[in-house]
C-alpha cells in the first residue's frame, strides 16, 4: 500500500495548482482509501462480530482477489471478468476454509488466530510459487478522467467509490431486511438461544464466512489497478482493517464506516505532510492512543 499512497501523493502534486482543487483532490484520495478500507473491513467485522473469529488470513483473501484478476488476464479474459469472478472464487475458497478449519475452532479465539495465521503463511507461499515472487501489474479496466466544473479526477476511483456505496447498501439490506440477516443478528446476540429456536447456526456461520471472504476478494480485485500487487500486500491491509474494526467498535456494522473514515482520511492527509510510510505508522500509533481512551471504539456506547 505504500506504493498506492505514493501514487496518491504524486497525483495530488500534479493535479491542480488551485489550493481548493488540491484540497478536494486530497479529500477524494482519502475517500478512495476509505472505500477500500470499508470493503475489506466490513467482511472482517461481520466474521468477527457474528462468529467471534479473528481471521488473520483476511489479508490473504484480499490478495487472492487481486490475483484472480491477474489469472483471468492470463487466460485472456478482461479485467472486468476478473473483478466479477473474484468474489465468487474467494467466497468459495472462504467456504472451504470454514468447513475445513474454522468450524473446529469456534469459541477458541486464540487457536483460531494461530490457525488462520498458519493458513495465511501457506496461502502467501502458494501464491509465490504459482505467480512468482515480486510485484505484478494488471491491466487497467477503466482509464480516463471525470471532468466536473473544470475539476478532473480519475474515473476509476469514482467507480470504486460507487461500488463501495453499493456494497454498503446491500450489506445493510441483507442484515436488517432479510431472513438471513435476522438469523445472523439472532446468533450474534445469543447462539444457544438461536440454535434452540431452530436456526441452523453452522449453516449461517458458513454463509457469513463465505460472504465476508467474498467481500475481501472483491476489494482485492477492485484495487488491482491502484496498487502494485505482491504476495506480501495483504498483511498491510489486514492490520489497517483490524484497526478500522476496533476503532469503529466491535459488533457494529455502522462503526466500520466511521472507523474507515478516520483511518483513511487521516492517513491520506498525513502522507501529504510526511513520508507515506511514516504516515501509516503515525496513524496506527494514533489509533492505539484512541483505544486507550475509548476501548469500546469511537462510536461504541
Amino acid at each position, binding site marked *: 500500500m505504500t506504493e498506492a499512497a505514493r501514487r496518491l501523493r504524486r497525483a495530488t502534486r500534479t493535479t491542480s495548482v488551485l489550493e481548493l482543487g488540491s484540497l478536494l483532490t486530497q479529500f477524494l484520495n482519502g475517500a478512495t482509501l476509505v472505500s477500500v478500507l470499508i470493503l475489506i473491513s466490513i467482511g472482517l467485522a461481520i466474521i468477527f462480530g457474528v462468529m467471534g473469529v479473528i481471521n488473520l488470513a483476511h489479508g490473504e483473501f484480499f490478495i487472492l482477489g487481486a490475483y484472480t484478476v491477474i489469472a483471468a488476464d492470463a487466460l485472456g479474459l478482461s479485467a472486468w471478468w476478473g473483478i466479477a469472478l473474484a468474489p465468487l472464487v474467494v467466497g468459495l475458497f472462504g467456504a472451504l476454509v470454514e468447513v475445513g478449519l474454522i468450524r473446529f475452532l469456534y*469459541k477458541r479465539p486464540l487457536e483460531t488466530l494461530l490457525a488462520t495465521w*498458519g493458513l495465511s503463511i501457506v496461502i502467501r507461499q502458494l501464491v509465490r510459487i504459482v505467480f512468482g515472487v515480486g510485484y505484478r501489474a494488471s491491466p487497467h479496466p477503466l482509464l480516463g478522467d471525470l471532468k466536473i466544473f473544470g475539476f478532473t479526477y480519475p474515473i476509476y476511483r469514482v467507480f470504486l467509490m460507487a461500488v463501495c456505496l453499493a456494497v454498503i447498501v446491500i450489506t445493510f439490506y441483507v442484515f436488517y431486511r432479510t431472513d438471513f440477516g435476522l438469523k445472523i443478528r439472532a446468533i450474534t446476540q445469543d447462539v444457544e438461544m438461536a440454535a434452540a429456536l431452530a436456526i441452523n447456526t453452522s449453516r449461517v456461520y458458513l454463509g457469513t464466512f463465505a460472504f465476508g471472504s467474498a467481500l475481501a476478494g472483491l476489494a482485492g480485485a477492485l484495487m488491482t489497478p491502484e496498487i502494485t500487487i505482491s504476495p506480501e500486500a495483504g498483511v498491510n491491509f489486514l492490520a489497517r482493517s483490524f484497526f478500522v474494526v476496533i476503532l469503529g467498535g466491535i459488533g457494529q456494522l455502522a462503526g466500520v464506516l466511521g472507523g474507515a473514515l478516520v483511518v483513511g482520511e487521516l492517513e491520506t492527509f498525513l502522507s501529504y505532510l510526511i513520508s507515506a510510510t511514516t504516515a501509516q505508522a503515525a496513524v496506527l*500509533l494514533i489509533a492505539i492512543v484512541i483505544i486507550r481512551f475509548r476501548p469500546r471504539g469511537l462510536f461504541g456506547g
Partner: protein
Amino acid sequence: MRATRGLPVLAAGALITLGLPLIAGKYYTELLSQALIFGIFAMSLDLMWGYAGVLNFGHAAYFGLGGYLVALLAREVRGFDPSYLGYAFSVLAPAGLAGALGYFLFYSHVTGVYFTIITLVVTMIFQLIVSDWYWLGGMNGLLGVPGFVLRVWPGLGWELDSEVEVYYLLLSVSVLCYLFCRHVVRSPFGLVMAAIKDNPERTEFFGYDTAYLTTIMSMISAGLAGLSGALYAHFSGFVSPPLFGLNFSTDVIVWVAVGGRGTLVGAFVGAVLVNLLKAIISDFLEVLWLLIVGAFFIVTVFFFPDGIVGTLRKLRWPAPRSLPRAASMREGGV
C-alpha cells in the same frame, strides 16, 4: 519426588549441551549459539503466553529494539565497546515500551485477542519506521556491531573470538536467564499471574491489581527479549528491519508452540529443533520451508497443543484423574 526423577534428564541435558561444540563443527556450533539466543527470546515470549495467558504477536519489536539500540550505540558513541551499558539500555528500553503499552492496553482492559492484534501492529509500526528512516540504516540495516567482550573492569576484559567460547558464553547466559524465569514464575508474583491467567475476574475480586501485575510481567518479558536482541546484535554483527518483522514474530511463536508453552525449557527445545530443521531443510527445499512453518501452526493447534515438552511431561507425570479441570482449560484456554 519430581526433582529426583528429573535428575537423570538434567544430567543428560547438561552433558549434551556442554559436549556438543566438541563434536559439532564450526557451522553447527554457530547455529546452536544462535538457537540459544533465540531460545532466550522464545522463553521471554513463553513468560507472557504460557504464564500470563496473553499472546504477544509482535514480540519481535522488543528483540529488534534491543538489537538496534546496541547497534546505534556502537555507531554513535566513539570508541564504544560492548560494555554492559549497551545491555542495560537494551533491557530497559523494551521494558519501558512494554510498560507504556501495558498502560495503554491492560489498563483499558484490552486483553486477549485484542492485545494480540495490537501488538501485531506495533511491530509493523517499528518495521515501517526502521526501513523508512535513513538514520536508522533503512532497508540495509546497521553494520559493524562489535563481537562479545567479557569485561570485568573498564579497560580490562577479553574478546571472545572463537565460536566455542561464544557458545559457552551464550550457554551460561541462557542458564542464568532460565533460572531467573523459573524464579519469577514460582515466586508469589508468578502464582498470582497463574491465577490471573486462569480467571482474571476472580483474581481482581480478591484484591489484586491485575492490570498492574500483567504490565509488570510484560515488562519482564520485554526486557528479556531486548537482552536477547542485544546478544543477537553482538553475535551476528549487524541488525536489519526483518528483526522487527512479522515473520520473525511468527517464528518465535512457532518455537514456543512446538517446544511447549508454559514450560520455559520448551522454548529452548523448540528454538533449537526448529532452527536445526530449518537449516537442514532450507538447504535443499527453500520454497517449502514457509509452507512447513504454516503447517506447523495448524498442526500444533489441532493435534499438538502441549508441544514436545508438555507432551513428554504428561506422559511422565499424568495429571491425577480426580482433580477437576479448570473451566478455562475445558474451553480450550484463553
